[in-house]
């Protein structure tokens, strides 16, 4: 693989996956959001969203808090400090990748 495309393989795959990227992008814009909001935003089913959140939590990128509002269970997700840093690093890598791709000339 040639530069700068080799750099794509180095992107954080946990962050790069589209559904997780949408979740992380949303959480980067707020203090916390509940499960229902993230579900409507991403269009994921409950099971898929739970699975993505569990993966993000396992990598300590998000913090999940479960509680009750009356009798209804409430699940809230928030970015951890590490998660915020990962999102910022990802965007900076993507910007750099884009810059390099625009300058790239195929070897003759």
């Amino acid at each position, binding site marked *: 693989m040639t530069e700068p495309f080799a750099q794509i393989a180095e992107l954080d795959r946990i962050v790069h996956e589209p559904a997780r990227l949408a979740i992380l992008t949303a959480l980067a814009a707020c203090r916390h*959001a509940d499960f229902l909001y993230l579900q409507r935003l991403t269009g994921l089913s409950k099971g898929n969203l739970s699975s993505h959140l569990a993966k993000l939590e396992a990598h300590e990128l998000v913090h999940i808090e479960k509680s009750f509002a009356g009798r209804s269970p409430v699940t809230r997700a928030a970015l951890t400090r590490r998660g915020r840093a990962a999102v910022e690093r990802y965007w900076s890598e993507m910007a750099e990748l884009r810059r390099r791709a625009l300058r790239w000339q195929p070897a003759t």
Partner: protein
Amino acid sequence: MRQPDLDRVHSITDNFFFWQGLRLVPVGAALLVLSATYASWWPIDRRFQGVVLVTVLLVGIVLSGAIGSYYARTFGRVAAAPGAHARRSTIKWLVAYPAMAASLLIDGAVRPPIFITGIVWAAATLAYWWSTGRGRPHYLGATLLFASTAAWPALGAAARGRAMINLFLAVVGATYMINGVLDHLELRRTLPPLLTSDD
């Protein structure tokens, strides 16, 4: 899943409260009632004007709470990042609201040939649109409409001063109601209903 535009995801989450358009409808209705209480055809004795306005205010507060619960139940909850909009809040309270109030006072007291309130409120509406995620073109329509009212006294639509302010309040009330519904439809398009299965 859909592949949502990430800027839009960020923008809507960041401004989720402001996209909950139905919250604007009671405010718009209250402004329409306020305007109507000054109209010549208003059927209720003007001695009860205060009672009517307080009632409208109370109904608006109750409705606003109910609408907030509806949004939380249907679209979920988002807690804003602390201090994320400190600059916007400062400009709103120290510049926009005082300018909007001052323009009404000037138009009521000085009665200039150009309706200043229309221009100031148009600028405030544009700033609101810009600072709350853009993407909702009806606020650009509202900006143009409010700006156009600057010429209405000169065009004979209403006499300068109180009559023009009254007409403007009705225009703002109706615009709030329409824009509120359009905001809501935009939010529904952006956050469509949930999947029912785990496919």
